[in-house]
């Protein structure tokens, strides 16, 4: 119960401020509430189908494919698979950490794990739909076109910088 309350704390604080604002400056209070309500309506209208798609992608795209094809020596194929599977995943970046960790432990190369995390964070398909909706098609596509090479570059740079460092106590890749 206390935990629930804490989650809604920001909302409650804002509502109280809204009420105070409305009491002292009715115009501004009304404008704060109406613009928030507009946004909320808009989000509630199209978030349900997006989450249904997120759920479907999550259950149908097997993560095992990644584990099989992202080991050392995996080149372009490893990159592509890391990206494709991460774009289909559900959840925020910190939900991707354990998955990338599991990949590393199974012998995935560092570059692909970083690419996987970067893609997970920035270019998931349902998110892209939101971005198109709110920021416009050219903004979303341009950001995608710039982010993708940045993510891949980061992966390979990080692998280079970290070479020689012990990797997440990786066991020998016996099940590859």
């Amino acid at each position, binding site marked *: 119960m206390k935990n629930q309350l804490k989650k809604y704390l920001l909302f409650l604080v804002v509502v109280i401020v809204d009420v105070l604002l409305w009491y002292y400056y009715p115009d501004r209070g009304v404008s704060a509430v109406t613009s928030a309500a507009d946004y909320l309506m808009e989000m509630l209208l199209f978030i349900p189908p997006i989450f249904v798609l997120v*759920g479907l992608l999550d259950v149908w795209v097997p993560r095992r494919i990644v584990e099989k094809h992202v080991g050392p020596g995996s080149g372009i194929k490893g990159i592509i698979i890391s990206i494709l599977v991460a774009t289909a995943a559900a959840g925020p*970046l910190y939900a991707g950490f354990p998955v990338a960790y599991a990949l590393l432990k199974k012998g995935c190369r560092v570059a692909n794990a970083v690419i996987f995390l970067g893609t997970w964070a*920035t270019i998931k398909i349902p998110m892209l739909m939101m971005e198109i909706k709110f920021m416009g098609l050219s903004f979303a596509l341009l950001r995608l076109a710039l982010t993708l090479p940045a993510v891949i570059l980061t992966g390979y740079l990080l692998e280079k910088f970290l070479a020689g460092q012990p990797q997440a106590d990786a066991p020998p890749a016996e099940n590859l």
Partner: protein
Amino acid sequence: MFNAALFILAAVALFFSWRRDREKTGKALQIAKKQFFNLLPSMLGIISLIGLMLALVPREVIAGFFGNDSPLGILVIAIIGSITLIPAFIGFPLGASLIAAGASVTAVACFLTTVLMVGVVTAPVEIELFGKRFTILRNAAGLVAALAIGIIMGAILQ
């Protein structure tokens, strides 16, 4: 229009998934429900905060600070984006409202990219799993990439 297409897409996908495998489809719906209710509190909080911000902060202030691509303004918004833990589902409407209030494309692109790629709040978890060097390098690279992406986007789109 966009919403209608989205509903149809989700319905069709759900239909085929249901025909292939009922159990998996049920699990997918469970995931959808869980994500929705996880998001609800922060969604309500941040959306009401956006409304308050739009009502209280005059357009000129946002446009003045984040609208003229001053290096300081961009750095500030990139740092805000790195620190705050906003789900992407809320980041995009927030970005749209900033643009509507007069912020520049560069500033908003930097903000959104750091929100997505750089996680100061989640760094402890990342360090625990991947080590300090990995975490610092990955987040630093994300910040640099975000600034570069924002500047290029601003140059092309404005």
